[in-house]
């Protein structure tokens, strides 16, 4: 099965707004109270809440169709195998890959990146270079540092400016004949920057380098088209996409996956085993050793189908409205500084308040039922770049209401009251 790049939306496309209240009714947890207040969940960038469609799909699968996959010849195993492979096809369509065999199920983004570092990185040589950005998540830093220890590669860091935007010229200057790979985030979880990934891929390919994109934060917010992007690898994680934990995805171009050695080894990833010699299976099975997260894959496919019923054009329009509203509200708070003010941003508001530690901010907000993240967001180098040890971060999802950001602003007024 092959497919073409999707056309990009035309200006005349109609971005229908949707009824956020109706969408919220799909998420049972959003109805609960915390410390006596209605929950205001502003930590979707860390992990998204789950709609009924996802919970029901996993429940139904376990109750009606569950068995191990790729093993039995009996009815249920065939049903389960079919559902698991149908989930792979759903993911293929979601990122618009050419073939389903380019979709490898992993535990999460972290495992997807580790897989590339271990397998694609196996033929890297001392002196080969990998370029990262200054605002990567630790999971797109540490695997490369470990590869550096094993293979003697060199890591180079592309800088960002004071707004958190990649300095494209400086990035281009880092590219050279030794550059093997550019590993870069699509959207920063810590400060919300949307990276110019199409331009990055173009420049990297012109220099002969491969590109891995960490799409953890992008997959929940915008349509992904790996063919149009022409990236070599694309990684994302199910739990931020309104799906379950324990399931993630690595997209890799077929010819690259075919050339890569296995990652982990055991069952499922072999063609034949004798004590003398083992032949490995073709991708994607080669990279899915052991019984996979079958139920997780079913849940992820349900999440993708769910998001599609709303549509990314509408989701993006809603989230941009949230970003504008939140930015305006927070700019009014005395002593507050937004960290990350890139022109292209996701609805992630990272901020520091003069004289108040982010953990105290989060504790005070929590008592009003408002959940925000406080700390370094697994991106300590990014924090260092902006001269802070951590921030408070409010992040939105498709179910976030505008007035939840008003509640945040009121909560911050309470912080000011307590801390003076």
């Amino acid at each position: 099965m092959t497919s073409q790049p999707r056309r990009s939306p035309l200006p005349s496309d109609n971005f229908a707004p949707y009824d956020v209240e109706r969408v919220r009714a799909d998420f049972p947890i959003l109805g609960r109270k915390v410390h006596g207040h209605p929950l205001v969940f502003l930590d979707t960038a860390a992990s998204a809440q789950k709609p009924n469609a996802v919970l029901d799909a996993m429940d139904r699968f376990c109750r009606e169709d569950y068995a191990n996959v790729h093993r039995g010849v009996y009815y249920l195993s065939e049903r389960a195998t079919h559902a698991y492979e149908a989930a792979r096809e759903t993911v293929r369509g979601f990122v618009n890959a050419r073939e389903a065999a380019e979709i490898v199920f992993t535990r999460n983004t972290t495992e997807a990146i580790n897989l590339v570092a271990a397998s694609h990185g196996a033929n890297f040589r001392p002196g080969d270079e990998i370029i990262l950005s200054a605002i990567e998540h630790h999971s797109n830093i540490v695997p490369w540092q470990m590869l550096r220890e094993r293979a003697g590669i060199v890591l180079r860091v592309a800088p960002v400016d004071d707004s958190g935007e990649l300095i494209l010229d400086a990035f281009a200057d880092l590219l050279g004949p030794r550059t093997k790979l550019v590993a870069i985030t699509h959207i920063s979880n810590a400060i919300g920057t949307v990276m110019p990934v199409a331009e990055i891929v173009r420049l990297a390919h012109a220099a002969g380098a491969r590109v891995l994109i960490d799409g953890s934060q992008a997959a929940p917010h915008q349509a992904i088209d790996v063919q149009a992007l022409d990236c070599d690898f694309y990684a994302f994680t199910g739990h931020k996409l309104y799906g379950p934990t324990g399931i993630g995805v690595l997209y890799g171009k077929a010819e690259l996956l075919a050339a890569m050695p296995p990652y982990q080894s055991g069952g499922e990833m072999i063609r034949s085993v004798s004590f003398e010699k083992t032949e490995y299976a073709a991708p994607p099975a080669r990279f899915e050793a052991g019984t996979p997260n079958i139920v997780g894959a079913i849940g992820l496919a349900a999440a993708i189908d769910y998001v599609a019923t709303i549509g990314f054009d509408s989701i993006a329009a809603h989230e941009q409205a949230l970003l504008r509203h939140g930015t305006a509200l927070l700019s009014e708070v005395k002593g507050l500084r937004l960290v990350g003010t890139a022109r292209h941003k996701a609805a992630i508001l990272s901020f520091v308040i003069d004289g108040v530690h982010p953990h105290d901010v989060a504790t005070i907000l929590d008592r009003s039922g408002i959940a925000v993240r406080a700390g370094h967001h697994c991106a300590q180098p990014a924090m260092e770049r902006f001269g802070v040890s951590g921030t408070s971060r409010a992040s939105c999802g498709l179910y976030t209401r505008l007035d939840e950001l008003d509640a945040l602003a009121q909560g911050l007024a309470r912080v000011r009251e307590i801390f003076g």
Partner: protein
Amino acid sequence: MSDLSDLYQELILDHSRSPRNLRRPSNPTASAKGDNPLCGDKITVFLTLEGGRVADAAFEGRGCAISMASASLMTDAVKGKTVEEAEALFQKFQAMVTGKSGAGNHDGGEIDRLSALSGVQAYPMRVKCATLCWHTMSSALAHPGATVSTEKLEA
């Protein structure tokens, strides 16, 4: 449910805004570092021991209001104590903030001055903010030059 004002009492806010003993003494006889990787808080505790007593206690570091206030109150509290008394106070403090000693069940003395921090027991995620400096102090007493991390601590 506890009120925020139990946690952020005026005494705590005062000590966090202007921490006592926030300095690096010139000749400490023992010191230790502590860090809380969860929030990036770091602290160094400096002790000057003379004849089995804590003649001076000071700290450096940055952190949330709870951790700054706790280090400030702690360094005041252990000054003049013998090593054994300082350790005993740590045990009492830990019991208090983890809710194991029961409210109002303090036996008077130094712990009463520290009881402003007892509100933290209603905030389990924040208990380590209050105890990090104490663990660090205790480690400086036991092995001067050591590093403690909240990752390895229960409370």
